[in-house]
């Protein structure tokens, strides 16, 4: 399931990845039992990349980040920063900085002292510190607040102090542990844009840990979806949304309909699943996928890709009959739940472009159709990219 990457040869400084994890395993002792939090992770994060580790709580994403930061040591495997092995190097000697979920600002120090903390540890000259802290506070839009204490600031401001405190050291990589988790929705959306801007401005590699798929999709260059200590899928946000590689990814990223059926025929690199009269689902078979007639398969299709009709639609795509079980009006769109023979509770999003009223009501008989390229086979036969 994991995408293997060609790791650039170590020692070639121009193409060195910012961060590399090789076969990283982390075990914890809990009540006398060994719990494996990370189960053999291989990851290569490029220079200047906005990289997200996405997964539900307990999937090992935070542990992975803490191993990069140096707060945890892997049980097996190695961590490399810019080609240099850092396994065993303590956190205060690693050239990465972290933004903590709780911000972890020093409450007894002013904003200036907080931001200057790392530079002072490095023995940077006083005038240089003043200049760089000033610059960084400018970037995070906190100029003039140097003398404030963290306790006198709002959550969003504290967040930006934490960011400045880490970035001012010009780390090789910035690690962010669910940094927006404590903010309210509106501020969170603002900060997402803000973070992306700051990352572009300073050009530092960002490793972003989150359980919020929307956040990961919005900001990342690439996303690693983790589940239960392993990598489920690695790719660009579009890759992961449009081509979920597993049932877990399909379910975790956005809303997905999980359908199933029996293969009636395989032709032209497509499998056709048959149901009642006039009903069929056409699934493109990607390279390396082999299915045969009579096989039971599972597939996903996103709710916004499905069209809802009151009459049998024309065309040779997927079409299936169903009964509307629920209609939810959401302003910009209307959601329908439709019971079909391919799956109960198929969710359909329709944009309310110019409809004054809903297409169908509860209990109506409807037809669903979608383009074959929006269906993906998942599960044991797998759609290995």
């Amino acid at each position: 399931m994991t995408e293997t990457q060609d790791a650039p040869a170590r020692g070639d400084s121009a193409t060195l990845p910012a961060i590399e994890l090789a076969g990283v395993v982390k075990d914890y002792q809990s009540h006398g039992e060994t719990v494996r939090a990370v189960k053999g992770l291989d990851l290569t994060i490029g220079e200047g990349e906005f990289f997200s580790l996405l997964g539900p709580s307990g999937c090992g994403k935070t542990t992975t980040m803490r191993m990069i930061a140096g707060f945890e040591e892997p049980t097996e495997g190695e961590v490399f920063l810019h080609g240099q092995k850092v396994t065993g190097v303590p956190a205060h000697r690693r050239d990465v900085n972290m933004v903590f979920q709780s911000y972890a600002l020093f409450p007894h120090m002013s904003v200036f002292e907080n931001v200057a903390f790392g530079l002072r540890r490095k023995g940077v000259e006083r005038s240089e510190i003043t200049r760089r802290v000033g610059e960084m506070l400018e970037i995070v839009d906190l100029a003039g607040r140097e003398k404030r204490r963290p306790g006198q600031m709002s959550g969003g401001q504290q967040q930006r102090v934490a960011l400045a405190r880490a970035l001012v050291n010009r780390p090789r990589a910035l690690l962010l542990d669910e940094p927006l988790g404590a903010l309210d929705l509106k501020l969170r959306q603002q900060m997402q844009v803000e973070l992306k801007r700051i990352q572009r401005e300073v050009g530092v590699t960002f490793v972003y840990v989150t359980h919020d798929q929307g956040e990961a999709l919005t900001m990342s260059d690439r996303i690693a979806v983790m589940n239960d200590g392993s990598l489920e899928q690695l790719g660009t946000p579009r890759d992961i949304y449009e081509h979920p590689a597993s049932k877990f990814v399909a379910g975790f990223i956005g809303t997905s309909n999980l359908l199933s059926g029996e293969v009636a025929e395989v032709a032209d690199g497509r499998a056709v699943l048959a149901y009642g009269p006039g009903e069929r689902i056409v699934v493109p078979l990607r390279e390396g996928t082999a299915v045969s007639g009579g096989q039971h398969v599972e597939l996903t299709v996103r709710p916004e890709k499905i069209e809802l009709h009151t009459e049998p639609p024309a065309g040779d795509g997927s079409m299936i009959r169903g009964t509307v079980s629920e209609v939810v009006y959401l302003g910009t769109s209307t959601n329908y739940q439709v019971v079909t023979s391919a799956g109960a509770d198929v969710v359909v999003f329709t944009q309310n472009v110019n409809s004054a009223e809903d297409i169908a009501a509860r209990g109506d008989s409807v037809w669903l159709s979608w383009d074959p390229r929006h269906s993906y086979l998942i599960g044991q036969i797998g759609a290995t990219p």
Partner: protein
Amino acid sequence: MTTTTAPAAAKAPARRRVPRKGLGLRIYTWAVIAWLVLPIAVMILFGFNDTSSKFNFEWEGFTLKWYAQLFDREDLTTALINSITIALASTVITTVLGTLVGLALGRYSFRGKGVSNLVLFAAISSPELVMGASLLSMFVTLNTPRGYATILVSHVMFSIAFVAMTVRARAVGLDPSIEEAARDLGAGPWTTFRLVTLPLIMPGVISGALLAFALSIDDFIITNFTSGSTVTFPLWVWGSTRTGTPPQVNVMGTLLFAAGVLIAVLNMVASRRRARRG
């Protein structure tokens, strides 16, 4: 020492109009304040008593001569110096050790943590008389000559738990990622402790230290068991009650009390300032 905040509290309700229905509360409040302050007031007052008898029980007129002759009684002065040096030394030792214990208990989980907590609690709750007697039999068994050193050891022993408790309370409320942030920013373990951990637990350390000093300087029971021939201020006062306590004792008590009030007020001002700065 434990009543040092009473005068500050007494100043607060100065001449403000209180609704009539609060009369009962007002009487009650003043009664409590009087209850706490009266013995101290008597002690202070009799330091100014121009007494001619050996016993300083009856008011005979105002004088400042006891302040002038404060150090005339050599044995009393020695006892006071003993008390003060023991209190200072035991406070320093106790604060260092107790802070480490409190940090360990508040920040980390380790084998034997529950037992350590229990031992601390036992040290606080066990009767002083029992502790003193068992310390004495221990020193006798170990053939340790009783004196200045054994007093110091005993004082450290019984006050360490108080420092550990106040520091632990502070350390428990500390976000562990604050220390991690310091490490992440390049501070080694010692720098992290000096610049981040210690300033954050400082209020707990200070109140623990004040408590340790207060416990040590007026301890009688345990000191009485472990002192050998060394005399401290409380022991001297106790001994003198049979033959007549000189007014210098009242003066010394007054000065100790004043020092206590001063430290308590300074501490309060400092913590208010800290709170205001956030």
